[in-house]
């Protein structure tokens, strides 16, 4: 039976998290020979479905459109997935906030144990996943009839585009009346998205205020065309919004370049960035643990170093 990949999208645009989860799905298909169908569920999501239909390796796109699916509320989306489940061996998605919300609900209703946050496909039923903030990696084999999996997107490259496959409209969910969407406070930014950026500049508690965070970190990020991240301490203190948090309980990223500014390097922060290709640490404490994972360490006061860094980059 085929694999069902739940697409991550923002209504009209498809997130590249989907193409990364597709790579994991293709690896599973490499063992099982299964076809891959992508489910796009939303209220006004045809453009996202069209983008999904262009991804190489996908054989069919299912498009479920209903007002009840507009905000990816867990209850109607789970109803839809549970209804589709009997036709699939594997249901998987990138481990986004939305998928982490809905997939365990689906797994429980199917009486299966979800395999969360896989970083490697070992075989059709065996996967590697991090535990203890990534301080250990477990290889687990599932014995369940249906596999429900979330994929750590940072560990997989995005699948390429290919030809285009058919889009099949299917019945959407219906509102369950259990939950209602009230409002969103979503950041709109011209900057690259944290989860998929090639470069990231992250600030920590050392930034001291929302103003300094803005005045010191953002110009450097602009020079580098980088996304902006933050430590939990910086987010808790209100210097940066919650969706910038990198770490065990925030976003897991693996850009080509990660620059940690005034971040000590607690294990919970490292959990979110230590697979970056090149890590730079700027910290005034030569003993800061962040230097143990940094390819380039610069000991110094960030308020002196960053303007020089910015100037040197521009020259």
């Amino acid at each position: 039976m085929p694999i069902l990949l739940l697409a991550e999208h923002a209504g009209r645009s498809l997130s590249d998290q989907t193409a990364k989860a597709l790579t994991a799905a293709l690896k599973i298909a490499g063992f099982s020979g299964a076809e891959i169908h992508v489910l796009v569920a939303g209220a006004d999501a045809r453009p996202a479905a069209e983008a999904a239909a262009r991804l190489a390796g996908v054989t069919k796109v299912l498009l479920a459109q209903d007002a009840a699916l507009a905000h990816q509320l867990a209850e109607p989306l789970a109803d839809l997935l549970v209804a589709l489940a009997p036709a699939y061996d594997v249901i998987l998605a990138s481990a986004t906030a939305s998928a982490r919300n809905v997939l365990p609900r689906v797994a429980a209703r199917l009486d299966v144990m979800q395999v969360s946050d896989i970083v490697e496909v070992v075989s059709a039923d065996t996967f590697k996943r991090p535990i203890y903030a990534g301080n250990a990696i477990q290889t687990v084999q599932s014995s369940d009839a249906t596999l429900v999996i979330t994929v750590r997107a940072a560990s997989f490259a995005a699948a390429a585009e290919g030809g285009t496959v058919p889009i099949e409209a299917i019945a959407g969910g219906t509102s369950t009346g259990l939950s209602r969407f009230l409002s969103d406070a979503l950041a709109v930014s011209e900057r690259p998205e944290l989860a998929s950026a090639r470069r990231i500049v992250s600030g920590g508690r050392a930034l001291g205020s929302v103003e300094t965070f803005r005045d010191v970190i953002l110009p450097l990020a602009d020079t580098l065309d980088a996304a902006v991240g933050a430590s939990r301490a910086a987010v808790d203190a209100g210097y940066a919004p919650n969706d910038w948090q990198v770490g065990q309980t925030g976003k897991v990223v693996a850009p080509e370049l990660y620059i940690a500014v005034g971040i000590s390097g607690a294990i919970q922060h490292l959990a979110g960035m230590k697979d970056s290709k090149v890590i730079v640490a700027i910290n005034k404490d030569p003993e800061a643990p962040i230097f143990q994972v940094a390819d380039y360490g610069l000991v110094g006061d960030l308020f002196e170093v960053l303007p020089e860094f910015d100037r040197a980059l521009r020259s």
Partner: protein
Amino acid sequence: MKILVPVKRVVDHNVKIRARPDGSGVELANVKMSMNPFDEISVEQALRLKEAGKASEVVVVSIGPAKAEETLRTALAMGADRAVLVETDASVEPLAVAKILRGVAEAERPGLILVGKQAIDDDCNQTGQMLAGLLGVAQATFASRVEIEDQTARITREVDGGLQTIEVTLPAVVTVDLRLNEPRYASLPNIMKAKKKPLERKTPADFGVDIAPRLRVLWTEEPAGRGAGVKVASARELVAGLRNAGVV
């Protein structure tokens, strides 16, 4: 309204764990254990709701070894009213935990169940959602704000792009995120009082739950470490290095 709060005993978040060299698991002998940090937050939230007159009783429950009683006593010392210990020495997966919690919820009939977003040992982030699915009730995950009305709760959730606010019908399962509150410390007199608070002992079999794992752990290893690189003396040297590496 009664609030049910599951609390898990986990390796303390300050401990850097080691995988056993023979791949058989993580070394847990003589390691400091604590309440899962997210569960401290859910206990705190339950207590605040009770103090605000929105809840009448806070019941904490843990599934784990006899020593999980310590975790429950900590929650009782913070101010929870009573505890249920579902005792087992086996390691219980989130699906089975959720099934046991369903049994507890069916017996206790809470109006609200506050679950941690994630246990910092297995990092599964699924138990609360599973429980909501099994009970067929509403769920609101990753909460950074919780307001209780009569029959509903208004929850602000931390999502990928920022914040989302939803309203759920009660009873509901809410999973809590780190920024919801700052948990209190238990005072010494309260720690003494907690010793006398009621604690009921059960087993998974009492709820008719089969806890046999669905995932077989074949191997546990430490990730490939990354060696420290070089220290550079100046911003110019840093830029030169990055240009060399081809990342700027």
